[in-house]
């Protein structure tokens, strides 16, 4: 595309005034300029990649959540008769536990910026502990529901519940593994204030799995 077609004429040149110099065929690309300098990355590779992982995971959960909502809205009675109700109180507290882990994670990243390795390790451990507590409570709730007769094969109600919550739990499990790796890296000094990308990427993913939970909790337990 010739730049002269798109750009305003330079100041002092009227549209019907001086003929502009002939456009140079640029063959794609843009204006010619001086010596190109080195490029600065937008963001560390690991963080950028984690952003895209989160985008992909969002589509994965969007598939599950919208499928659930379609079945849920299409059902005449929900929950179906003779099926146990989902426990609200316990999972509400559990939601707060998971949200708290995210807050601890924020403070861990802040401590990394301050160069306080001991605090980083303690807070990462705290976040992981809260995440593990969340998973344990979920496990007990599942065991209770199974005792009450809600299984994966008891119709769309059980199927959607266990698939959605199970998929989220699997992601929390994966995020915990990632957190453990980040903890080891931080303990060995491979992550510090000058090279924070590995921990920041882990924190991004952790916040993603935490933020996902209230969405799932509201659609599965509350709606």
């Amino acid at each position, binding site marked *: 595309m010739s730049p002269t077609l798109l750009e305003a004429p330079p100041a002092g040149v009227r549209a019907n005034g001086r003929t502009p110099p002939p456009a140079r065929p640029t063959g794609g690309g843009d204006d010619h300029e001086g010596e190109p300098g080195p490029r600065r990355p937008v963001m560390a590779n690991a963080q950028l990649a984690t952003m*895209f992982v989160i985008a992909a995971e969002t*589509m994965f959960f969007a598939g599950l959540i919208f499928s659930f909502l379609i079945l849920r809205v299409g059902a005449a009675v929900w929950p179906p008769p003779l099926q146990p109700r989902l426990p609200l109180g316990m999972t509400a507290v559990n939601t707060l536990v998971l949200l708290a882990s995210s807050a601890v994670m924020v403070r861990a990243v802040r401590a990394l910026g301050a160069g306080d390795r001991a605090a980083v390790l303690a807070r990462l451990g705290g976040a992981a502990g809260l995440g593990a507590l969340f998973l344990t409570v979920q496990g007990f709730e599942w065991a209770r529901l199974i005792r009450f007769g809600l299984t994966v094969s008891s*119709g769309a109600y059980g199927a959607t519940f266990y698939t959605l919550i199970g998929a989220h739990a699997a992601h929390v499990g994966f995020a915990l593994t990632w957190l453990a790796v980040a903890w080891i890296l931080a303990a060995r000094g491979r992550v510090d204030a000058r090279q924070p990308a590995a921990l920041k990427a882990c924190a991004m993913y952790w916040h993603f799995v935490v933020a996902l939970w209230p969405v799932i909790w509201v659609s599965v337990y509350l709606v």
Partner: protein
Amino acid sequence: MSSTTATAHGHATHAGHHELGFVQTYIFSRDHKMIARQFLFLGLFMMILGGLLALVVRWQLAWPETAVPGLGGILKETSGILEPSTYNMAFTMHATIMIFFVIMPILAGCFGNFCIPLMLGARDMAFPVLNMLSIWTTASAGVIMLVGFFVPGGHAAAGWTSYAPLSAVPSYTGTNWGQNIWCISLFIMGIGSMMGSINYVTTVINMRAPGMKLFRMPLVVWSLFITAILLLLAMPVLTSGVAMLLFDRTLGTSWFRPSGGGEPLLWQHLFWYFGHPEVYILILPAMGIASEILPVFARKPIFGYHAMAFSMIGIAFLSWIVYGHHMFVSGMNPALGMAFTVTTMIIAVPSAIKTFNWLGTLWGGSIRFTVPMLNALAFVSMFVIGGLSGIFMASTPVDIFIQDTYFIVAHIHYVVFGGSIFGAFAAIYYWFPKMFGRMTNPLLGHLHFWPTFVFFNLTFFPMHIIGVGGQMRRIYNPMQYEFLQHQQHWNVFITVSALCLGVAQIPFVINFFWSLFAGQKAPLNPWNANTLEWSAPSPPPHLNWGATLPTVYRGPYEYNAPESREDFLPQWQAPVRAGAPRH
């Protein structure tokens, strides 16, 4: 992470320290070029298999319920005659293999890996280890898919679209483990493709050489970048769908089974929400490849570089809001169908922009009919036919008439064979010298291209006719319907053409392997092209360039530019200017 600092190490001087063992060089390699070759071999091997399955299907359609030559040893009970269940398995696996294990590995896997770092001036992908995991995850998915042929009950037989409840209830197709393996394989492939695509996107955003601005990137890199974003957002939806399908089949959940409160139509929504972007995942890299090859052999700048890039972005965006056109007969609200008709027809606009820009590139050029150029021209012309028959089906009333007939079979083959596969052939012939360091044989190349082009059209064009005549897609034996019997001669004609199309691939195989070992040594820049990969040795060593990376001074298509005495002006050549600092 370590690769971001790789530029600083001056690897050329350390070449001796980089001797890697056989396993690290050829098998668990982290070099993007070796991974590209691995994807290429995976795709070509699977292409032979998928092609043979297609011929088996064609044999049954031309001469129904006669013994297929060569299958007597495999189908012992029927002495080589296809039963309906075997036939269903054959067309299901033909499509599954061709789409997921041929076109995606070759176009996105091989050329994505090969072109992105080399054309951007990077030493490797952003995450080389992740890249290695990506090929091995994809290859494992391929092996798992192949295992399905050997399980009791045979492989998946519900079509590549695997519509529920046909696919959700084992007794409907008679396959049990086959369909489960299909789900598991595609789930794993989804993970592999995610690893690949985050690598591509990160590399394009962060790893470009100095001076390589976004709008100086070659269009093939643009196309692969957009493809990677589509893959990243579309594959997870399929992954969630196949997970639900697998749970329905193995754990007894009821996502798609009405008996437990599930909804079979849900599968179609999930599948096509992935499936339509998938169509563009298959075609966009081929569009980029054509945009790369046409200017080189027309010796002219690409016509409308920015328009080309923005129309690909437009296609990618629109691909998310058209998927309902696959479901016009699913009982959808006519108002919604109307909306999908309109959005689908809007996609013709960016596609037409691209087509006219390709023609504008050719107009007045000094065209060289080399083998890659011929394949690229075949891509453009066949894509026009495939694209136009797509507009027929975008229109709801026409679609209802030709839904699930051979018309759609003709359309998809014009797009994915005429489009993607010709694009893949063009790319293989074009980059072979850089990829393997040797030239291909042009005579064998012509012997491959011309029969392929002729028999491709003789095979797939008549399918439009028998489709409008009413022959159903996936039908086992057209002769059992009286109203189809009068066009059976077309089925025989198509099958004979398809067999010739298969034979026409033999020169390609000979050419590929002969050139691999005995071809003429390739010079640095055999096509006098402008893009960065031609500044690296053929084949490029590990980490691609010597101590310094190339610097980019201009766009990628400066052919016959007034400022150069040659008819090309490479991106890496510093401008000759008084007082300009030299590189």
